[in-house]
């Protein structure tokens, strides 16, 4: 025993007492059933000597210093956009009654968490104008995958149509997750404005056997899709489910999936009050229309309203017969752990902003992104697609982007995501001040 006292191992000083209560004289007896041949021959070598908390913090700070300190968040989006995270959000998810809780299996002592999840579902339902929302999945990519697997289950078909302008990371996840079930993912091209080609979509649909049509709003080029009614209609006509992937942040000003009549909506709550966290945890949402076959086939946990034995309004996990711990291989998904705490962050964020704040924020973001785009054009860059955009936009430079990028870095800033030799996807939000946008554009101007 190398340790005699440790803050996280309270019983080191009680080993003797506990052993005698058990009736053993050596700790080894606890492992009498483990064959000697698989017992560790020498101790594990992990993480060096135990560090005191102070030393842990010092080690972490040492690593922090190895990260480059940027002047402001990167102009990077592509599935994870920097936004300001309110202190109240951090405060609420820092309440350890929430973050040290398990899935609320015992509703009587978990009403707070259950109510919060019900409220999360309810907020998302209003935002999406869809009736049923689960209490979160891992991220956009996995939510999309679950939606497609559900469409496969519901329709029995294997073809899935997605736009060429799908986020490529989501596409990769989709392919991985659906590979085992033999789903085939096909891509639909886009037009000169950067919008999904409805003609091409119709052509592919008419070939038949399509389980689902997926669209993304805004799409990977940052462009807002304008003809989504047609997508829903066409999908319906051909017996396919319609799935809309949407950045929920835009819904303060943009038409929600429910208004179009989409069967399923998915996306990520990352832009609603989550730190970037180097890409995770994020929080996938999953919503369906009020239709039995969809509700019964949807994955993930759902909290519903009910009453207790004294008639008080209360909350509980519902439709558990869909889930793996009861249905096993017949479950609608294998998911257990979700992203409840991140869903809570979404809820707190939205409740702080409210309808007015969300709309104002959307307007402010659009102003700033359009300001940045205009300034970039003024110094000689171009925007290849003319569709309206929200916070992201594709920029083409006359110079090589690697040079542009480097110059931007020299100002302590970080440019957009390189897509080809001359283009990059830029993201501008409320965390990018006019000042920093100007600095970035100045740097760009120098290499034009």
């Amino acid at each position, binding site marked *: 025993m190398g340790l005699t006292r440790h803050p996280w191992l309270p019983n080191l000083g009680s080993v003797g007492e506990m052993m005698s209560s058990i009736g053993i004289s050596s700790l080894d007896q606890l*492992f009498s059933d483990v064959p000697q041949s698989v017992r560790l021959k020498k101790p594990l070598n992990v993480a060096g000597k135990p560090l005191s908390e102070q030393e842990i913090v010092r080690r972490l700070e040492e690593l922090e210093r190895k*990260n480059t300190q940027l002047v402001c968040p990167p102009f990077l989006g592509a599935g994870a956009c920097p936004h300001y995270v309110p202190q109240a959000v951090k405060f609420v998810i820092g309440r350890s*009654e929430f973050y040290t809780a398990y899935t609320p299996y015992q509703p009587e*002592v978990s009403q707070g968490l259950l109510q919060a999840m019900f409220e999360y579902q309810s907020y998302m339902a209003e935002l999406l104008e869809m009736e049923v*929302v689960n209490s979160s999945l891992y991220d956009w990519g996995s939510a999309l995958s679950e939606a497609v697997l559900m469409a496969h289950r519901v329709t029995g078909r294997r073809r899935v149509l997605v736009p060429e302008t799908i986020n490529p990371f989501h596409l990769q*996840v989709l392919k*991985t997750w659906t590979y085992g079930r*033999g789903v085939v993912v096909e891509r639909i091209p886009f037009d000169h404005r950067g919008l999904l080609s409805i003609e091409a979509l119709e052509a592919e649909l008419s070939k038949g056997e399509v389980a689902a049509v997926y669209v993304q709003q805004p799409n990977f080029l940052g462009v807002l899709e304008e003809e989504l009614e047609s997508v829903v209609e066409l999908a319906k006509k051909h017996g396919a489910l319609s799935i809309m992937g949407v950045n929920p942040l835009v819904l303060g000003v943009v038409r929600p999936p429910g208004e179009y009549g989409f069967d399923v909506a998915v996306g990520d709550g990352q832009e609603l009050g989550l730190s970037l966290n180097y890409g*995770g945890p994020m929080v996938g949402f999953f919503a369906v229309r009020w239709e039995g076959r969809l*509700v019964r086939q949807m994955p993930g946990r759902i909290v519903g309203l009910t009453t207790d034995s004294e008639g008080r309004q209360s909350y509980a996990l519902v439709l558990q017969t869909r889930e793996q711990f009861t249905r096993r291989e017949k479950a609608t998904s294998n998911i257990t752990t979700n992203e409840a705490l991140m869903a809570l962050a979404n809820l707190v964020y939205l409740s702080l902003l409210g309808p007015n704040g969300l709309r104002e924020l959307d307007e402010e973001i659009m102003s700033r992104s359009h300001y940045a785009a205009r300034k970039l054009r003024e110094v000689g860059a171009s925007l290849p697609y003319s569709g309206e955009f929200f916070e992201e936009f594709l920029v083409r430079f006359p110079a090589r982007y690697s040079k542009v990028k480097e110059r931007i870095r020299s100002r302590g800033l970080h440019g957009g995501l390189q897509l080809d030799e001359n283009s990059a996807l830029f993201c501008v939000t409320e965390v990018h001040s006019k000042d920093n946008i100007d600095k970035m554009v100045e740097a760009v101007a120098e290499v034009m």
Partner: protein
Amino acid sequence: WEEPLLFQYKGKNRVGLAVPREDVNDRVEVPSSVKRRNPLELPELSELEVVRHFIRLSQMSYGVDVGMVPLGSCTMKYNPKVQEAASKLTENAHPLQDEDTVQGVLEMLYDMQNWLAEITGMEQCSLQVPAGSAGELAGVLMMKKYHEDKGETRTDMLVADSAHGTNPASAAMAGFKVVYVKTDHRGLVDYGLLKEIVGPSTAGFMLTNPNTLGLFEENILEIADTIHSVDGKLYYDGANLNGIVGVARPGDMGFDIVHLNLHKTFAVPHGGGGPGAGAICAKGDMVDYLPGPLVGRVDGSYSWSMEPHRSIGRIATFHGNVGNVVRSFAYLLGLGSDGVNMLGVMSTLATNYLMSRLQDVRGLQLPFPGRPRKHEVVYSVTPAYNEIGLTAEDVAKGLLDRGFYAPTIYFPPIVQESLMIEVTETEPKESIDEFARALYDVMREAYSDLKAVKQSPKRTSVSRLDYVKANHPSTFTPTFRVKRLREEGSLQVLK
């Protein structure tokens, strides 16, 4: 508290967060075809109202920081507070930043890949999986692709009948047929039966060891040999690793793939259901199939340079739940080698100590007696059920009234009226004593006043719930929107 829903707040013209305004003359509107038409039906709240609401809700939630959460197979450890400080390392990093700007993050991930490989006895780990079930999916897909690469179609995935429900669910998601392997009279995999089942269509065997009864599979080497003899792969469900960390390693037992739940064994907080963090580790020819890329180190600098040749591809949108991986990193720094090597011993000691305090409790039965448990133990209240009609759920609710969270109940399915208890090495001996007393007390009360137990919990914010109402198509209410539309008469019964 009876805290109203946010939707029941009535304020007007309020905001809880001001939006900054930058003076740029580029106000644009979204095209009218795309513009939202209906007003957002969300409440308007000041910052005070939001904060107060959630403080009150938090006080109606129970977590490890409030008291013991002895949920079996969930490994609800104490989450050291230093972990919260740790998240600063990753908080503001964008997943697509140039690698030279996130060397600190990458170094941390690199260390974690290696440490977890050492702990499991695997060669390489991917941290991309956000939690256990995604890790399982990755694992079964790896097996699928492996066999396909050989030009074989293997249809069967073997699963122990005591396995976590995720195992068969994951196998099914990957398109496998699930074949259950029964548990024998000792509570272990029926090895004789297994040998009969294994054959050319066997893709692999998903197993956890110690199993969900808390028992170590003694025949593990023979099991591995049997699976490997048909070129099947042995998959380790890491949910139960805590009982043997520092004592034995899956890699040394013959496992080929291991998934880990960092939110169980490595103290990432459970977050009320999530987010967790996971790892999927492999050795031998399975390394090439890991989800990629992995962090590599060249000349002292770190990058996403290691791409497994036959990777099943991306399982998460970015790099997994890095913001939680760093919490495990801090935890491992604090334990160090000395601490890690004691995890299995101390958690197993805690379980067996609890058992020593629960001997001869009337109505409580220990199935498969006579063997030491590891991280958890499963009891059955079948004797009490038969004698007086007491159910496992009744016992659970009785424990709630005594200030404890309940154990996992009705799992594993091979034990009737089961209570699956895991205390972990972070609970002080005195908490275990109190829990044992509380459980004893519930059983005692049941025999003297069954009705009282059946009516529990009484000291919680609500009493037992109406699940029929919660789930019935005519009353099912998953959102406030459904409640509102139903009250307006514009919603049909769910068909």
